[in-house]
């Protein structure tokens, strides 16, 4: 049986899909009779209650509407988590200190230089897309290790812009 770590609304749940559309959550048999209504629409029974769930898979997880819940749900398998921990402990990539372009955009200006100390929430770089300027903010404190972006140049979605340490 595959175990998943599912993050929903800031909470992490341990989820094990079983047979016949039943799913255990945090060790308890919770969801059952999961039915697919259309490509994106599902109906789930939790006890005697029905919940409608609409899901779309994106690059950063699932985009979900379930009753009044609207948001992103991320799913990581037990095996994936172990691999990621191993990669981190051996200095591999995939750390949160890389700043990537969230969308195709134009680099308007850089707010930091190599060697600058930054605090969480500090603007790092300004991108322009959809006629609007958007600031990318530091997710945590650190020091700017490298800058790959150049003002005035276009960047692709996912392109590495800066490295913090």
């Amino acid at each position: 049986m595959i175990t998943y770590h599912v993050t929903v609304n800031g909470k992490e749940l341990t989820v094990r899909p079983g047979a016949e559309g039943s799913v255990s959550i945090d060790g308890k048999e919770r969801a059952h009779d999961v039915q697919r209504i259309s490509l994106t629409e599902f109906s789930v029974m939790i006890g005697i209650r029905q919940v409608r769930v609409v899901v779309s898979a994106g690059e950063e997880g699932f985009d979900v509407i379930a009753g009044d819940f609207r948001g992103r749900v991320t799913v990581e398998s037990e095996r994936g988590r172990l691999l990621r921990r191993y990669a981190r402990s051996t200095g591999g990539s995939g750390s949160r200190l890389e700043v990537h372009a969230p969308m195709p955009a134009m680099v308007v200006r850089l707010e930091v230089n190599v060697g600058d100390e930054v605090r969480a929430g500090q603007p790092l770089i300004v991108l322009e897309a959809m006629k609007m300027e958007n600031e990318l903010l530091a997710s945590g404190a650190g020091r700017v290790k490298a800058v790959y972006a150049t003002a005035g140049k276009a960047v692709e979605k996912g392109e590495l812009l800066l490295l913090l340490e």
Partner: protein
Amino acid sequence: MAVRPIRKILIANRGEIALRVIRTCRELGIRTVSVFSAADRTAPHVLAADEALAIGASPSRESYLHAGRILGAASASGADAIHPGYGFLSENPEFARSVRDAGLVFIGPSPESIASMGDKTAARALAAAAGVPTVPGTAGAVSGGTEAAGFCARHGYPVLVKAAAGGGGKGMRIVREESELVPSLRAAASEARSAFGDERVYIEKYFEDPRHIEIQILADARGNTVHLGERECSIQRRHQKVVEESPSVIVDEAMRSRMGETAVKVARACGYTNAGTVEFLVDSDRNFYFLEMNTRLQVEHPVTELRTGLDLVALQIRIAGGADLPFTQEGIRFSGHAIECRICAEDTENNFLPSTGRITHLRAPAGPGIRDDRGVAEGDEIGVYYDPMMAKLIAWGGTRGEAIARLVRALREYEILGVRTNIPLCLFVLKHPMFAAGEISTHFISKYFSPGTLSDALPLEEEAAAAVCALIAREAEVAASPMLPPPPGHWRGRRSDFFRGR
């Protein structure tokens, strides 16, 4: 002006406003021509029009901002009028002039009126000369730090730096102390140059908790000018309107008449014809000051339509064809309360970054008092080329409370997946007790909103979401690795392949 039959209209725009214009044309028996860029090859406004002509590559300046190609499409299709919508070329006096010179009807004001209101400093001077109160500001564009500092020394901080050619909040900066002045002037000028190709900026006194209230006007070629009441658009994020409503909770009958008469005065001062909007800043003592005039149909015009029962696009076409307004000021009746939300492809949880991608699921709301003016459909790609607004959701109710309740209900029904939306922000505003109390200003969102305040979800709903996502993840894992045996009948349903079907 002679009454001139308009039989075919080219809409020089895209998205919801193009569809909005097409709908009225259909009702009037007028044929419609859409134009489109490469990115919009199968967009709803292209599929809906009677005719649709390709005008160029995806970047706006090679298509929707390319006057020559739009005029070429008008000539090729035999259109006798052009509706510019909002944005793009709608407030470009050269475009309006070249439409007229091509022997076509421009559905909007004269190029002269557009030009006189397009330069924001000239517009303010014109309004002041007509006896209309204006926000204290520099008489013209400021050339350097010394002149700017002089104004600030006289009127005190905070001040607002604005683009002379501006609109939509671009090239705008608040300056709270002298040390920020020169860097802000420079940043505003740079943003203004990239947005409008004009780096001139001017300075205005800045009010701490102002409201933004605007008056819709209509004027025919015979000089009949009326106002259609106010719209309060104080709920903004980074100077972009998010929620608009009418009536404003602070405007009573006397204030409405005063503001309306002032707006009519501004329109007359620039010889205005067609639909336009006069924007005012209102301070905490309910004094109002002229800000600018938008010489086009506004995004939020449906708020006024629901409250007056009028079709502003139909009236625009009628006026452009040379006919008189079919009513006087006394004939305009207001009823109930209307509120609009702008639904944009922005990630509410992630600093409102624009969200791009394909709309994989879309279900629109319906029911009593709800109007959904939308420019996108399921399967559409939201790209980086154009504005992130996908739809406007407007509710009408007999009272403000009923309109809010209907809009909240409809926002909860609205389902868009594949791109992130600002629906959580709209819900946050409409459900906020200060909004319910009418205690709003242009700083409402920056004052109260943080992404942590968003969710009303039940644990049950979170569990159901987690269960479905885990099942889909397992299906993907099984599909990707043929070594794993397929799980025994783990789903029930009519269609089984989430991944193969995409």
